[in-house]
């Protein structure tokens, strides 16, 4: 017995069931972008459809950044208004203190 010859015979190539190539091709065609050949994927990436998607993404980003900037401005104005109110309250209070001191001085001089 020649084992090597027997192995060559036992391991000879066999064809897959009929229609194999067609089934693979159908799966390849129906697959998502992930199963496209690399060449056609590169072409798809430079198609106008992708430019629209990039443009839409840019508009969204601009809207988000614009909204953030408006929010920042409103916050700053609110802060300034609060500061003005505090300063005015302090000025009124110090005026009242001054008036009270003056009254005390006048009473003392009588």
């Amino acid at each position, binding site marked *: 017995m020649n084992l090597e010859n027997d192995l060559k015979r036992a391991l000879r190539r066999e064809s897959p069931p009929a229609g194999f190539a067609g089934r693979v091709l159908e799966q390849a065609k129906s697959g998502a972008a992930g199963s*496209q050949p690399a060449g056609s*994927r590169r072409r798809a990436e430079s198609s106008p459809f992708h430019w629209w998607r990039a443009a839409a993404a840019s508009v969204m980003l601009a809207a988000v950044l614009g909204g953030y900037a408006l929010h920042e401005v409103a916050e700053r104005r609110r802060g300034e208004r609060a500061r003005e109110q505090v300063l005015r309250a302090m000025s009124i209070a110090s005026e009242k203190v001054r008036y009270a001191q003056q009254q005390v001085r006048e009473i003392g001089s009588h």
Partner: protein
Amino acid sequence: MTAIAPETADAGSPLPQARLGDHDAFAQIIERHEAMVYSMAYHFFNDRGRAEEIAQDVFLQLYRNLGAIESDAHLLFWLRQVTTRRCIDLTRRARLKAVRLEDVGELRAAEKRSDALLDRRLRALIEELPDIQRAVVTLRYQEDLDPSEICRIVDLPVNTVKSHLHRALQSLRRRLGEHR
């Protein structure tokens, strides 16, 4: 992955057209290599259903990677390497043994001839070998590759490949003797 020297595709090769997305050219590639890929998986698992699934997966992976295939020689190397790795990975992930009913029927019919019976015994014994020995034996005797070619596919030193081959043949001889 071991590098293959860039070569131009053979005249009349469907590879350049397939790389541009031509489905007919890709179908030609499948038809040229389907028996090799399917048989490698079949001889590894001794299971026709699993062999067909693996062959489908390998060709779908090829479809996604056509842009990286440089030549017909590279394509052949790539298919052998990816099929071998997939078979070994699947064996390591789940050590399942399935025999489909249609295989059993086919084998019973084949047993009428002594060569077919010996073939069946050999394939069953190969299935019991450690995964790397199975891969080496399939590449040696199905694909008729010598150890210096096999070592690039399985990414092992050539002496390790020779050693696996030697041990596999010893094991097969011993077990064939036990079955007689």
